[in-house]
């Protein structure tokens, strides 16, 4: 693993339980364990892909990093720029959080819901700069213009309202807004899921260009394994609130060490009809986060499950350099990599 000093953000044993209330007195009858002990790190300037099926807690992780949810447990260590000491965003007082917020920004999935329809693009892009007292007057206008240029839109677009733009263009505006404060980390939560494939490609290209230009890090959250493989250097795969596998992208796809990873890869539909390979059809639905199975949460669907799996939660252990996996039998299983499975992602 990388040493702590290189990490921009380090999440350790992060937890978020949502209470479930019932009845007239809103009695708490249980907890949804949306995130249950997640740890990973993001290096300066890298892309970490966070992937999983719906309900696995990937969005909740992103929101906790943004400070939108207060974690139930664990810490989020953030290294502010210019050599200040690391701070734990999970434990920080709200007043001290404000100056740090500008370093971490977010892009949302739905470009139709995440832009205020009553503000012009100029107002949308200027707002973070004004609120944080970074620029005003001429300087403000210059910065807004450079932002719109950075995301490939034109200065004429600044006077228009969001409704005048297509989904892809709106997503560009969202990205420009997120970049206004020169963040060190961008949390992108399914930024291309609402877009057509040809537009998705434009946004992915833009994200890669911007990263090269500005050197910021991405936490790229998606359910699309093909996209995650394309954009990420390292990948965290989650299943009902836990990390299943955490590895460099190539290592994960060449040699998955968890049965869930293998099955997921084999299930991605391929655009190469002649490559349609071995499909590992999993039984049943993803586990319910309100009622997580005992032991390994994946054991009821796992092809290789043994008695131990239903009893003991497997710890996340390093099996190769930088390759961590949470499976009791990762050492003895001989799982098939993406290319050998015939999956064409």
């Amino acid at each position: 693993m990388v040493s702590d000093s290189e990490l921009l953000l380090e999440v350790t044993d992060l937890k978020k339980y949502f209470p479930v209330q019932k009845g007239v007195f809103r009695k708490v009858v249980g907890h949804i364990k949306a995130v249950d002990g997640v740890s990973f790190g993001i290096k300066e300037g890298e892309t970490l892909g966070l992937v999983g099926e719906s309900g696995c807690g990937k969005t909740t992780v992103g929101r906790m990093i943004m400070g939108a949810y207060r974690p139930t447990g664990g810490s989020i260590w953030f290294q502010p720029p210019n050599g200040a000491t690391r701070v734990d965003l999970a434990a920080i007082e709200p007043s001290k959080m404000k100056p740090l917020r500008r370093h971490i920004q977010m892009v949302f999935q739905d470009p139709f819901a995440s832009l205020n329809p009553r503000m012009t693009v100029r107002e949308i892009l200027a707002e973070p700069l004004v609120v944080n007292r970074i620029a005003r007057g001429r300087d403000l206008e210059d910065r807004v213009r450079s932002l719109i240029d950075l995301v490939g839109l034109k200065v004429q677009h600044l006077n228009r309202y969001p409704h005048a733009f297509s989904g892809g263009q709106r997503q560009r505006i969202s990205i420009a807004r997120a970049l206004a404060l020169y963040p060190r980390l961008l949390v992108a939560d399914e930024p291309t899921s609402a877009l057509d494939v040809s537009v998705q490609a434009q946004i992915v290209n833009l994200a890669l260009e911007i990263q090269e230009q500005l050197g910021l890090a991405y936490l790229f959250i998606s359910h699309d394994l093909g996209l995650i493989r394309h954009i990420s250097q390292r990948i965290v795969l989650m299943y009902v609130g836990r990390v299943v596998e955490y590895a460099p992208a190539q290592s994960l796809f060449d040699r998955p060490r968890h049965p869930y990873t293998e099955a997921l890869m084999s299930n991605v539909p391929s655009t190469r009809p002649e490559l349609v390979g071995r499909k590992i059809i999993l039984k049943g639905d993803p586990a319910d986060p309100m009622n997580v199975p005992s032991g390994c949460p994946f054991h009821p669907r796992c092809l290789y499950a043994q008695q131990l799996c239903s009893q003991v939660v497997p710890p996340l252990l390093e099996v190769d350099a930088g390759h961590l996996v949470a499976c009791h039998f990762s050492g003895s299983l001989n799982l098939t990599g993406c290319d050998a499975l015939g999956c064409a992602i």
Partner: protein
Amino acid sequence: MPPILTVENLRVHFFLDEGVVRAVDDVSFSVEAGKTLGIVGESGSGKSVIGQSILRIVPSPGRIVNGKILLRIEEGNGSSGNLDLVPLAPHGRLVRSIRGRDLTMIFQEPMNSFSPVHTIGSQIMEALRLHSDVSAAEARNRAIEMLGRVGIPSPENRIDGYPHQLSGGMRQRAMIAMALICNPRILIADEPTTALDVTIQAQILELLKELQQEFGMAILFISHNLGVISEISDDVLVVYFGRVMEHAPVDVLFNEPLHPYTKALLRSVPGIDTPVRSHLATIEGTLPDPYADIVGCPFFGRCTECGGETICRDDPYELTKVADRHYVACPRMCIKT
């Protein structure tokens, strides 16, 4: 084998205050029993309207203005004929007797396609009892059997459950059970796996293939996802701006696409040949104005291969046969071959 459904020169227009949207513009295709035709296109391409017009459920102010939808009718005495669905009244007795029996549909979001206040069983039995003369007890047995067949565990209990009590994947299975209860000859599936996770999507695709083998129905599978289309289809129709750009067997379409739009679409998906973190091919520009009446190729202006030749803009749209079962609507391509 004669096709079970033939669509000829179908045009569906939406008459809005701002103008006329040509949602489906001169589309022709046919499907054989036991085969799957994939219809792929980006949002706004008119792919869903094609499915709706076959069932005669195009929402107002849309109207079928031209074309034929021929459903093959087998008579009892071994002879057969074609019934054109277009002249029939959309709410008439004949259409209603065909819809749900010969032609059925499954939708993207099964929560919106089931009534939330009726049990799953009563909705499945309703379809069966409307179209065939069975007793309530027999209908119930058939519904339980069907729910079991689509992989719903303990169907005898689930039949009295409500749609909200099922997970997304299970609801989609129940939807499929409802669609197949009358043993239809054609199933129209409009983005049936788009709202589902990949592992559940794989289950549903596998189930549809199995059921097709068993019941022999033709499937019209509508999706924006090229991967899903490549896995389930025998033939594929690529639609853009209400028109068929290319129509080919699945392996031909994905390995040797001819139309520049098909090629561009396939290139924009990161795949096995795309180096990691490389620049993805994109389609520049946007869809034409929906109210525009375009004579030539609707992809003109975004196409990187035609180089702005006026023939592409001016030559009237035409789908030309280039090989057996392979049709392309590209003026430049067809001149060459």
